[in-house]
């Protein structure tokens, strides 16, 4: 049911693990929902120079995390904020319909990490528009 790209990304994910001196950390989801995604960002001159993730969840969630972290590496904070789940889905070659919600977690976690970075720098957090957990997305119907 998954594309080969998804399976490959799930089997050999990149950017796995914690980051000791992250500039921003974001976590979305909950264990009761069955998926949690945690993103660590290292920022220099407004650009993401390093990124790591930890994910508890299904293959789609792990593959989305890996893909999203690969995509935001090198982006400016503004570009990373605008990464959408459609961008992640396209890069993965799509997900089966019931799994699409898993791809929402990655952009949400990245935005949560960016807001954490902003707060640490004394800036106001930006509106995220979604809560991150299953059922909280209007897209989930």
């Amino acid at each position, binding site marked *: 049911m998954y594309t080969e790209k998804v399976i490959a990304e799930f089997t050999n994910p990149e950017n796995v693990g914690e980051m000791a001196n992250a500039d921003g950390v974001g976590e979305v989801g909950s264990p009761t929902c*069955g998926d*949690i995604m945690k993103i660590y960002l290292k920022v220099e001159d407004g650009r993401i120079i390093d990124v790591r993730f*930890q994910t508890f969840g*299904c*293959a789609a969630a792990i593959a989305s995390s890996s893909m999203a972290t690969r995509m935001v590496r090198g982006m400016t904070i503004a570009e990373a904020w605008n990464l959408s789940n459609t961008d992640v889905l396209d890069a993965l070659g799509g997900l089966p319909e019931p799994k699409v919600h898993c791809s929402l977690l990655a952009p949400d976690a990245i935005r949560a990490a960016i807001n954490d970075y902003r707060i640490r720098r004394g800036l106001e957090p930006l509106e995220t528009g979604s809560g991150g957990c299953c059922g909280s997305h209007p897209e989930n119907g």
Partner: protein
Amino acid sequence: MNDLDPRPVYMDHAATTFMKPEVIAAMAPYFSQYFGNPSSLYQFSREPRKGVAAAREQVAEAIGANPGEINFCAGGSEADNWAIKGAALANREHGDHIITSAIEHHAVLHTCEWLERQGFSVTYLPVDGFGRVDPADVEEAITNRTILVSVMTANNEIGTIQPVAEIGRIAHEHGALFHSDAVQAVGAVPIDVDAMEIDLLSLSGHKFYGPKGTGALYIRQGTRIESLIHGGGQERGRRAGTENVPGIVGLGRAIELATADIEGHNRRIAAMRDRLVRGVLASIPDTRVNGHPKERLANNANFSFRYVEGESILLSLDAHGICASTGSACSSGSSEPSHVLLAIGLPREEAHGSLRLTLGDANAKDDIDYVLEVLPEVIGRLRRISPLTPSCPRIPEVD
């Protein structure tokens, strides 16, 4: 699996089984040589008619019933639907209450929910931490309006065997019918419908090395039950439609083989299963075994691995050629884990981390070794990815 042997290590026998060569051989003539319709009058239809009759005897023999009480249908789900809807509709003048358990197969649960929408009331009994229904709970829930009690013989996910004989006795003391879904139990639990006080029993061919799309409902003589499928007079007017003759013949041969030596079969399978469970517990920390320590199907091993999610375990095992199943269903944004695992009191996160391995005749000792080699590595890898794994010192949350 290796480069020389591309077969997967199949450990999902509760989902379905392969067909035994003897079963295929028994069926073969009925596809071509004896293709006649058993309802036709000419002599050419004698053989298919005899094939169906012989299968009816084989099924009856396997569960301690009379051949006239065996009704063939298209599988376990149909048998469950038939038993529950049929008994409810035929007995509604006597009452409108049904008792079942929280851990039944969806073929039972969703049928009961449908009957609730038709005006019946249903009690869903809880189970203990091992997945057992307490017969005292049946006694407490039963009223003079109870027409049917339905409790499975053995659970499909965690393998727990239910005290069906006691439950059947209680149902009968109160004038209610007793149905048991024995889909997972046939060939693993010796069944005697009289001793177990069962009035209606569902079984399914493909769970015991028979063909898919075949099943049977045992209906004790004298039981009031409506039909679901109306049409011709097949199955003595109870289930219309031209008989699936090859399938029925295969079901008969398969149940005969599966019940010939249940004890010996269980001994062999349980020895492998126990080694698997011991090996997993010894090599993977933060693991629990779900289900009953003793009262469980010989082939069932159900684990919860903390900090990881079931589907990712499943797909990782699949990448190594191991077929298994999980109670975690991350889909449609609901991510609701197995109702069975929640009913035994597992926290959601542990229910999400469940893995079911069900052994069978496709397995040998090597398969256990292989799983014990691969599984710790798979769980270890996923735990290294998971933010829940405690060995990673957690970064303080920023609210």
